[in-house]
Structure formats: structure tokens, C-alpha cells
């Protein structure tokens, strides 16, 4: 399994043609207390860079983009009852959705962990 990152602070764990998507620890720190997450339903088609989910903090709503194109297999139902999972475990249990990749070559432009760390340090 390989983990990639986007410059919009999403992470994606890829295992063959399926993958799990969430937001990074840096992103949850910037958003602050998360009170609601809207995840996509199974079957939803998402496009690389397009809106895929919404995360709401006390203060504001923010879009979460799809790191790659594909079909959603599952949204994380646990976030409905406990949206704060995104604060406490953003890169684990606080994942947003799983999808089947439609074009694995889209992964080529994404960052690895070292590159993402360097990117965040420069912000």
C-alpha cells in the first residue's frame, strides 16, 4: 500500500485499484474543531480535483476534493456520529471515503510523504 498526498491536504492510500481518502493532520489542525462531515454515497462518481466531501468546523464549511477520479465504494459512516474522529485520528479512523480508481496514472502528479512534509513546512 502506498500513501500519496495532494497540495489541498488530502491523503490517499492506494492498494491496487482501490484506495482510501482522508484529510491530513495538518488540514485538521487548520480547520479546528470538526462538527460535521458529509461523505459521498457509494456509487458516486468523483473526478480528480472535484468536490467529493464537505467538512464543517465550528466556524466554516470546507470542500474536500477527490485526489483522483473514480467510483466511491463506501463513505465512512462513523463520521456521522463522531465527526471529531477527523481531529483525533485524521490519517486513520477519520478517513472520508474509499473508491475504485478509474485512471491510476493520475497518481503520478501526487506527492509522497517526504515531499508533502516539505510542502507543509514551506507554508
Amino acid at each position, binding site marked *: 500500500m502506498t500513501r500519496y498526498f495532494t497540495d489541498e491536504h488530502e491523503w490517499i492510500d492506494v492498494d491496487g485499484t482501490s484506495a482510501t481518502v482522508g484529510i491530513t493532520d495538518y488540514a485538521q489542525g487548520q480547520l479546528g*474543531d470538526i*462538527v*460535521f462531515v458529509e461523505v459521498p454515497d457509494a456509487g458516486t462518481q468523483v473526478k480528480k480535483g472535484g468536490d467529493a466531501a*464537505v467538512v464543517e468546523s*465550528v*466556524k*466554516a464549511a470546507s470542500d474536500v476534493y477527490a485526489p483522483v477520479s473514480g467510483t466511491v465504494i463506501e463513505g465512512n459512516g462513523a463520521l*456521522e456520529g463522531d*465527526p471529531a474522529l477527523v481531529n483525533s485520528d485524521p490519517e486513520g479512523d477519520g478517513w472520508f471515503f474509499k473508491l475504485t480508481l478509474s485512471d491510476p496514472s493520475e497518481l503520478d502528479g501526487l506527492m509522497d510523504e517526504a515531499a508533502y512534509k516539505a510542502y507543509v513546512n514551506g507554508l
Partner: protein
Amino acid sequence: MSEDEAEILELPLGDWHRALGARMVPFAGYAMPIQYEGIMAEHLWTRESAGLFDVSHMGQLMLAGDGVEEALEALIPADVKGLSEGQMRYSLLLNDAGGILDDLMITKTPMGIYAVVNGAVKWDDIGHLREFLPDEITLNHMEDRALLALQGPKAIEALARVVPGVGRLFFMEAGSFLWGHEPLWISRSGYTGEDGFEISVPAEAVAALADALLAQPEVKPIGLGARDSLRLEAGLPLYGHDLDEATSPIAAGLGFAISKRRRTEGGFPGSEPILQTLKDGASTKRIGFMVDGRQPVREGAPIFSGSTQVGTVTSGGFAPSVQAPIAIGFVATAQSAPGTALEAEVRGKRIGLIVTRMPFVPHNYVRRGAVQ
């Protein structure tokens, strides 16, 4: 650095906030702390203990000169002449159509009328006052003073240790105090729904005073994020969101700001349409909503009764003390009774709303004459 960044001004406590780990954001043209440890924790701390807010971006004005009370009555609907020294009032700067240019706090002081206006519109307010006040009235924009707010049920304990004697003030009263050699102007007021104080202090002394307040065990620094969620729970309108030039004070539920004598005499900008609306009732009303589920409904969301749009949300968010989303909005008066079920549209989805009496969390003001 972009041009926008170059225009962000620094207030006296900018470095103080950064040293405490605040996340700074541009607000009203200044770098301001949005949060320290997190909006939720800061909000709840203020409700149970005491939160220290920097509100130095707000405009502190002193209006003085012979006839200042009459002159100001030509621009606002308060009974300025009837104020006794140290008494303060919530008032409105109105245009000729009766729309709201800003809301403000005015206090009668030995020097003149002290006014605190919103940071985002303070330059417009100053221009308006200079244009319409007679030449013999002086307007001093006190940029050499900072403004702190200490809010919460334990604010009195903490402040009385630093500035003895503040307990003589009750809600909406103000007076002069000394902190060492520093002259302070302190009012028992705020905009969180809690008991608390606003403290006007010379800018060069504000960091030392903020440190002295923060040294009290009841006190933590609080950012603007929690200030907004606190005022929302308190049901208090925010200028530029719930109030603007197109808003009638009566529709906004601010009829109390038009004092009794002025209702009879009129003579303030927009007095004819406003007094007529007071008689006939407004066609829309500012009301509160509880929101079904956990999803916040934010400013701008249209409100529906069935397929008909009956209003718009003007402030909304998650209420930490209520542990649910709440909202303030304007709807047609026919739909404004508590208990009315309506819907808001958020990202194409309908969310249930129930009209609710405000405040969402009871006010804890310490009023003169009230049974403690």
C-alpha cells in the same frame, strides 16, 4: 508580499497573541487572533470561567462639545440627554431611510459621549459623524487606546483582583479606574451573553494589563472565532451579517434601542418609516432556529416553507454550549412564531429548522437592582 498582505495593519497586542500561539487572520483590516487552543474549548471556558478578548480593532470615539447630546440625537434614536454619567446604551447609527449604518455602544462620561463602533465599518462611521455633526462638536478617534473584553461568570473575581472596585459597576454601567498610573475606562458589558467587562486602556500599557489579567487562574485568552459563536448563542446580531443598511431596526428586533422619548418626539434619521413600522409591525422578523441533525446551516442559506422561500439565514454555526447547530435569520412575520417548522437549503439538500426563542443560552448579566 502581495498588496493585500501589505494592507493588513498591526494592533498593539499582535506580537502578544503570536507569543501565546494564536492563529492570526486578517479581520477588519487588522491581523487578529481567530483562535488559540480551539474555538470549542475557548467558547466553553468563557461560559464557565473568564475569557480575555482583544477587541482593539473596534473604534473608540469621544464626542465632545457644547450641545453634543442634542447633536448626537439627530443621528441616533437613543435618549442621549436622559443618560446619567456612567450609564451606557446600545444604539444604532441610522440613515434617512431608517436603515442601519452600524450598531454601537454609547456612554455618558465627564469628557463627553464615548462610543464604541464596529471595526469593519469604523472609518465609514467616523466619516458619517464628521459630516453630520455640527462643527462645534469634536470627534476624537482614540487610536492611542486598546480595548480588552473580559467575559464570563468569573470575570468579576479575576478583574476585581487586578482593578479593585469594579464590583460597583452593574450591567451597562461604566466608570474610570486606575491601574497603577494607567487610566482605565471600564464598562460592565460585552457581547457574549455573559457577565463581563470591556476595558479601554492606553495602547502602550495594554500588553502589561493583558499579562496581569492572564496571570489570574480564571482567565484564558480567547479568539474571535469563539467570540462569534458566543454572540450567536446569546442571540445577538452582528453588523454586516444580521444587520445592514437595508435592515429595519424593528424587523431586527431592536425596537428597544429606540427610547421612549424618541418614539414620541421622533427627530432621528428614518424616524418616520421606523415609527410607522413600530405601529404597523414589520413584514419580516429576525428569529432564531434550532437545526435538525448535526449539519450547520450558515449565513446565506435560503429558508423555505414548502416550496416558497420565506427568508434567509444571516448567521449560523455550531453552538458549543448547546452541542447542536443553531442559526439566526430573517423570515416573513407570518412564519416567525416559535415552534414553526421550516427548512433551509444547504448544498441542494433540505435541512429542518424549528423557530426558537432567543437567546439560545440564557444571558447572565448582573443588573443593578436584580435579586442576586
